[in-house]
C-alpha cells in the first residue's frame, strides 16, 4: 500500500477539512446529481441551467481533494470553472425568459455540453500556458469568480422574477420561483466572500501576509468580519440545500 501511495503526486499544502465544507459539498452533490439527471430527461432549455449547477458542485468538490492547494494551475482552472458555471446558468435563465416571450426553443442539448466543455478547455489551455499562479494570483482568480457570481446572481433573481411573472398561472411557476431563493443565498454567499476579499479580510489574504509581514486592520473590524464570515458559511450551506430542494421540487412538478 505504501509503495502505491509513494507513486501518487506529492501533497505540498494539505487541505484543512471542516465539517461545514463537507456537508455543503454533499448538498451540492445532491443538487448536481438531480440537475444532471434533469438535463437528460427534460426540455432543452433546462440543460444550460442543469449543467451550470453541476459545474458548481465540480468546482466545490475539487477544493476538498487533498491536492487542491498543491497545484496552483489546477486550482486556478477550477476557479474559472466556477465562473463558467454561473455564466452557463445565467444563459439558461435568459433563454428561458426568451422562451416565455417568443415561445421559441432553439439549439440542441449536445451543443450545450460541447460548448461548455470547449470553453473550459480553452480556459484551461490559457491558464496552462501562463506562469504558475502565485497565491496572490490565485486570490485574484477567486475575486474574479466571486464578482461574476455576485452580479450575475443578482441579475438572475430579476430574471427569475420576470420568468415567474410570465408563467405565473402555469403549473411550473412556483418551481421556477424557487430559484430566486437559490440566487438570494448565492448573493449572500458570494457577496460576503467578495466583501471580505475587497477589504483584504479573507483567509487567503491573511495567509499571504503571514509570509510578507504586511499589516492588517482586521482586528479593528472583528465584528463585521465575523458577521460576514457567518453569513458566508451559512449562506453557502443554504445555497447547496436550496439548489437541491429547488431541483427536487421542480422534478416533482414536472415528473
Amino acid at each position, binding site marked *: 500500500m505504501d509503495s502505491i501511495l509513494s507513486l501518487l503526486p506529492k501533497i505540498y499544502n494539505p487541505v484543512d477539512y471542516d465539517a461545514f465544507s463537507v456537508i455543503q459539498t454533499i448538498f451540492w452533490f445532491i443538487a448536481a446529481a438531480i440537475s444532471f439527471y434533469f438535463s437528460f430527461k*427534460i*426540455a432543452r*432549455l*433546462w440543460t444550460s441551467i442543469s449543467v451550470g449547477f453541476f459545474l458548481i458542485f465540480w468546482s466545490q468538490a475539487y477544493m476538498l481533494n487533498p491536492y487542491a492547494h498543491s497545484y496552483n494551475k489546477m486550482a486556478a482552472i477550477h476557479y474559472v470553472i466556477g465562473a463558467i458555471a454561473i455564466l452557463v446558468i445565467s444563459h439558461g435563465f435568459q433563454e*428561458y425568459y426568451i*422562451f*416565455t416571450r417568443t*415561445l421559441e*426553443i432553439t439549439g440542441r442539448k449536445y451543443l450545450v455540453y460541447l460548448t461548455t466543455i470547449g470553453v473550459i478547455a480553452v480556459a484551461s489551455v490559457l491558464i496552462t500556458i501562463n506562469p504558475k499562479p502565485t497565491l496572490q494570483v490565485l486570490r485574484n482568480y477567486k475575486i474574479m469568480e466571486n464578482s461574476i457570481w455576485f452580479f450575475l446572481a443578482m441579475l438572475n433573481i430579476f430574471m427569475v422574477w420576470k420568468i415567474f411573472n*410570465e*408563467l*405565473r*398561472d*402555469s*403549473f*411550473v*411557476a412556483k418551481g421556477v420561483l424557487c430559484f430566486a431563493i437559490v440566487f438570494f443565498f448565492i448573493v449572500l454567499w458570494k457577496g460576503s466572500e467578495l466583501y471580505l476579499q475587497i477589504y483584504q479580510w479573507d483567509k487567503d489574504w491573511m495567509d499571504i501576509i503571514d509570509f510578507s509581514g504586511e499589516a492588517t486592520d482586521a482586528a479593528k473590524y472583528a465584528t463585521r468580519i465575523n458577521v460576514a464570515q457567518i453569513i458566508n458559511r451559512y449562506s453557502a450551506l443554504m445555497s447547496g440545500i436550496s439548489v437541491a430542494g429547488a431541483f427536487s421540487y421542480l422534478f416533482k*412538478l*414536472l*415528473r
Partner: protein
Amino acid sequence: MFILPKGTPLAENVPTSRIDLPVVLGKFRNSNFNGYAKFGLSAATGVFLYIEGRLISVFFQPEGNNSRQDLDAMQATIENLVLNRDGDFSAYRFSKEIAFALLAMFRGELILNAQEMKLIDFKAVLEKIKAERMNACLKIYTENRAGLIFYRDGAPIGFCHDSAQEIGLSQTEIQKIAVLPGARIDVRVIKDSEDGATLVDLNDLVDISKVWSVAKENVFTTVSAAPAASPATTISAEPAKTDLAGLQSDLSNVAFKYLGKLGRPLLEKELAKIGGFEGILVPEKLEELLAGLENGSKLLTNLAKIRQMQDAMRDEVARYR
C-alpha cells in the same frame, strides 16, 4: 379512366358517415381554400372544386354514365351522400394555378375529344397551347392507363398519372402512356376571361345547408337545389364559420386550462407551423400539432398534464368532425 391528381392532403378516406356536408364546405369557404373535396361513393365520385374559398365547380361522375356538372352534380352528390353513408371523403389543397387548371379538366371547352395520339400532330397541339397561352388540361389515356398535364398561360405547371397521383414536374410517365397502343387525348381549355375572380361561386346560388337538411330528412325525396338564402337570412350559412371558430376557441381554452396564459399563444404558434387552423382536421396534422405543443409545454407543466391536454384536444377535434 377517371383520375384526379392529389395535392396536399387535408383529409383522406374519412368515412362519409362522419361528414356534415355544410360544415365541411363552410370550412373551405372560410379558409380561402384552393383545391377540391372528393366524395368517393359506391358507384360514383363527386368533386367540389374551390378557388380561393369559392365553390366554382362541382363534378359528378357515375360509373359508366355521363358526368354531371355544377348544380346537377351537387344535387346528385348530396343524394348519393345521404343514401350511401359508407363512402369516403378526401380533400386536397393545391396552388391557385393548379386549382384553375383543374377547372379546365372539369368544365373546360373540349377542343380535342378522344383523339388517337397516332392520328394527331401532338407537337403542334403543344405549340398551339403555348402560342395561345392557354389554360388547359391534357388527358392522355388508354384503357388501363391515364395521365394529365396542366397548363397555365401556355406553360406546363404539373403532371400526374394513374400510378402516382401526386402532381409532379416529370412528364416521363405520361410520355410512356402517349406511345402505348390505342392512346388517346382529350384537351380541355378554359377561356382567358375566366380567371378565378370572375367565376360564379356556387355557394351563392344554393343554400347547401338547406339542401343537405332536406335530403337528410327524407332520403327518398329527390332534392332540388334550393336557392341561396336572401341577404336577410344569410345567417343560415354561418354555423360552419361559427363551429370552426368555436373549435378554435375550445382548443384555446384547453391550452389555457393546462398551460396557463402562455398556452394560447403556444397553440397559435404551433397551428401556424402546421399551415393554419384548417389542417387540424387532418389526423396527421393534428398529431404534428400535439407533438409541437408537447415540446413547448414541457417548460410549463408535467408530462401527465400534457397527456391530459392532448387527449382533451383530440376529443374536441373528434367531436367537431
